[in-house]
């Protein structure tokens, strides 16, 4: 690719063929000279740097302008996408048929199965460079552990579970469990409480009548220990995606055997700031204008990935039918809802704020509903995995987001009591097929009454909440967006941290003072990853 840049070459630039802008040179130096980055972290950042020397896929002037002003955002995925943002390989099928590419036969016992999966993980791409989905590990491994007790499984699984955290040091790496109970599932929760690892992130699928209260209580106790799992609403999810879905990365619900090409997002706050006039004209003109620009950005990125990068023509996961293009779609992200609502309310001379005022809540729900209606009408190419349309996603932020609220959350410090909080946000959950998150805080008294937390989770699901995530302030884990970092790791960041996501957390911590607000929920952050 010929790069037409007009600055003088620096010492590190190849003679004549490549010229860097001063900001690019600075960025390159930052990566090359930062000894606190691990080898892999540096390689990945260099790859992004190199990718971004290529021109972006074509965009209209309006879309380009909105992107430069970050009213709309491509999540800094890179100029020339060459792998889908998130992939969810069909691990069950792989375990059954073996893999020609990996030259591995179908595994016959638990040890073979875990090594088979570990070998796969090393070859599963995503935007982060690591797999964001490890499979529904309880269901995948249970057939290999028939007749084993929970204790026997724990012993057999412990090295594998440790290796997940050490080999895939990225908190966006996610496994799903449930909805049915099993010794394998209980063994995994037991290991989680014992090992206290950042990886893997976990979602427990909860289904009334299938998931026993005792299992939910065990999972609540696991949250007390290590801030995992999330609780996800199986009936709501299967209504959108069918049984073959999983929650990956940060609350991203996608089809197994498919995934999401990309994630683009619109900053409602920036849209509201650019709006002149009353609330009705916001819905009539300004909002649809920026939604269309977001859709355009999405479309051009999908086309590059599918039509030009060759990923879906050649990747081994596609060739072995473990990923299928017709099970992919893309995520239409939104964030800064609270800020937009409060701005629009102020313009109309009203003091009500999202989370504490019925009119503001109703305005918030309308913005989300109208966005969803737009997305449902706007065709996207290669999105057969969701009826030829993108999927709504409440995007929980990246570490560059300053003074803007994550997704559709209520701002930190303004959260009403738990019941009011759930009432305010629950109506949003119906439309965000590919994920939404509101993080709830429980104080230390919850530890003595896990049944109360079970009650709240079941109630929230009955109200239609898609995801229920809660945190205790007293453990060493802090939830940034949907991923975790250890408080002790943030404190140690200047010496270098093993998990890439810890850096994202550190940036977010500086901007949102989230560790100082440990008794509050945390805003979100993710760049180069997550979503």
């Amino acid at each position, binding site marked *: 690719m010929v790069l037409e840049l007009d600055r003088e070459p620096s010492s590190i630039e190849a003679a004549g063929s490549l010229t860097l802008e001063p900001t690019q040179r600075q960025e390159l130096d930052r990566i090359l000279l930062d000894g606190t980055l691990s080898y892999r972290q540096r390689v990945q950042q260099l790859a992004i740097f190199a990718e971004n020397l290529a021109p972006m896929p074509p965009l209209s002037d309006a879309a380009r302008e909105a992107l430069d002003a970050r009213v709309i955002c491509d999540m800094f995925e890179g100029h020339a996408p060459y792998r889908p943002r998130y992939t969810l390989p069909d691990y069950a099928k792989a375990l059954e048929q073996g893999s020609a590419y990996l030259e591995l036969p179908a595994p016959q016992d638990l040890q073979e199965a875990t090594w088979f999966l570990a070998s796969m993980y090393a070859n599963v791409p995503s935007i982060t460079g690591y797999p964001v989905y490890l499979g529904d590990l309880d269901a995948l491994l249970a057939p290999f552990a028939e007749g084993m007790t929970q204790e026997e499984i724990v012993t057999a699984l412990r090295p594998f579970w440790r290796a997940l955290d050490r080999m895939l040091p990225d908190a966006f790496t996610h496994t799903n469990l449930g909805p049915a109970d099993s010794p394998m599932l209980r063994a995994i929760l037991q290991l989680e409480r014992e090992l206290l690892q950042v990886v893997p992130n976990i979602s427990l699928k909860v289904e009334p009548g299938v998931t026993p209260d005792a299992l939910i209580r065990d999972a609540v106790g696991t949250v007390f220990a290590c801030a995992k799992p999330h609780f996800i609403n199986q009936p709501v999810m299967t209504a959108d995606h069918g049984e073959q879905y999983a929650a990956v990365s940060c609350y991203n619900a996608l089809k197994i055997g498919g995934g999401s090409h990309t994630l683009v997002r619109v900053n409602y706050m920036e849209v509201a700031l650019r709006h002149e006039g009353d609330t009705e004209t916001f819905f009539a003109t300004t909002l649809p204008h920026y939604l269309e620009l977001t859709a355009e950005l999405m479309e051009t990125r999908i086309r590059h990935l599918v039509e030009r990068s060759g990923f879906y023509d050649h990747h081994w996961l596609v060739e072995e039918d473990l990923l299928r293009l017709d099970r992919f779609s893309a995520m239409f992200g939104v964030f800064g809802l609270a800020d937009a609502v409060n701005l629009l309310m102020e313009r109309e001379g009203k003091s009500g704020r999202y989370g504490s005022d019925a009119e503001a809540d109703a305005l918030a729900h309308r913005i989300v509903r109208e966005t969803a209606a737009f997305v449902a009408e706007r065709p996207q190419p290669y999105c057969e995995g969701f009826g030829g349309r993108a999927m709504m996603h409440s995007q929980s932020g990246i570490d560059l987001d300053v003074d803007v609220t994550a997704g559709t959350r209520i701002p930190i410090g303004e959260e009403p*009591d*738990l*019941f009011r909080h759930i009432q305010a946000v629950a109506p949003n959950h119906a439309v965000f097929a590919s994920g939404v998150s509101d993080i709830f805080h429980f104080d230390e008294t919850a530890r003595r009454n896990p049944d109360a937390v079970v*009650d709240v989770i*079941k*109630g*929230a699901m009955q109200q239609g909440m898609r995801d229920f995530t809660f945190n205790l302030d007293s453990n060493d884990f802090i939830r940034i967006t949907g991923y975790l970092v250890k408080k002790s790791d943030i404190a140690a960041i200047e010496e270098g941290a093993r998990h890439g996501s810890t850096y994202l957390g550190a940036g977010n911590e500086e901007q949102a003072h989230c560790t100082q607000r440990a008794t509050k929920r945390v805003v979100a952050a993710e760049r180069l990853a997550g979503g």
Partner: protein
Amino acid sequence: MRGLVSGTIPFSMVDGPGNRFTVFLQGCNMDCLACHNPYTIRVCDDCAACVDVCPTPSLQVVNGAVRWNAATCIGCDDCIAACPSSSTPKTRSMTPEALLEEVRPVAPFLSGVTVSGGEATQQAEFVQGFFTALAAEPATRHLTRFVDSNGLVDEATWAQLDGVMDGAMIDLKAFDDETHQALTGTSNVSVLASIERLAQRGTLHEVRLLMIPGRNDDLEDLERTGAWLHAVDPSMRVKVMGFRCHGVREAASTWTEPTRERLEAYGRALRAGGLTDLVLI
């Protein structure tokens, strides 16, 4: 029928099993030095001392009575601080049905409802009406109905709640009656009778002991307490709570809080008396 309600909490994790809607009724028949919410002890006597300190126009005297306007109240609690008689102007006179309406939207999130105080049984007729309404309503029928009480309650009052109350949590301030009188101003004879009575009927959920160093924490007394409770019911569930200065009136504000070690000593003394189901907080 109306009850005088001091406040409600839609989600409470500390008032019985699971997540509970908790109602605080105004007025108490004890006057404990260690009371953690002393503004619920007496019913407002309309002295109007609070009206002048209200920073918003939320308190007014109308026909000689103090009226509170919840809509303009900012919740600063300056009125409670100014009250000379352990009360609050911020109470609501409610029917059982009105209270039920507050529970209804929260019901999917709950294991049950707890009526606390003040002393809940002082308004037993209202509690009975509220529990009956909860039991009759399909949306709230599944909720367990608990009372949090100081136990200074006579047989006729408990009998009023039979059939509609699923469980009671009884505070025992001290087993030794002299100590009990020093802390509360009243004898514990009917408290002990309440514990026996409820245990026999199977509606005693737990007994709570608030332990205050130097006031009611003699370890030999505590062992006798444990033995007596064990004799009443060998599987008695007992919650041992260390005294905390937070929220108490001035007289108790300098009292000592027990250390974790001291709390564990209480646990050992109670176990020596035979108890096994102990929670130390």
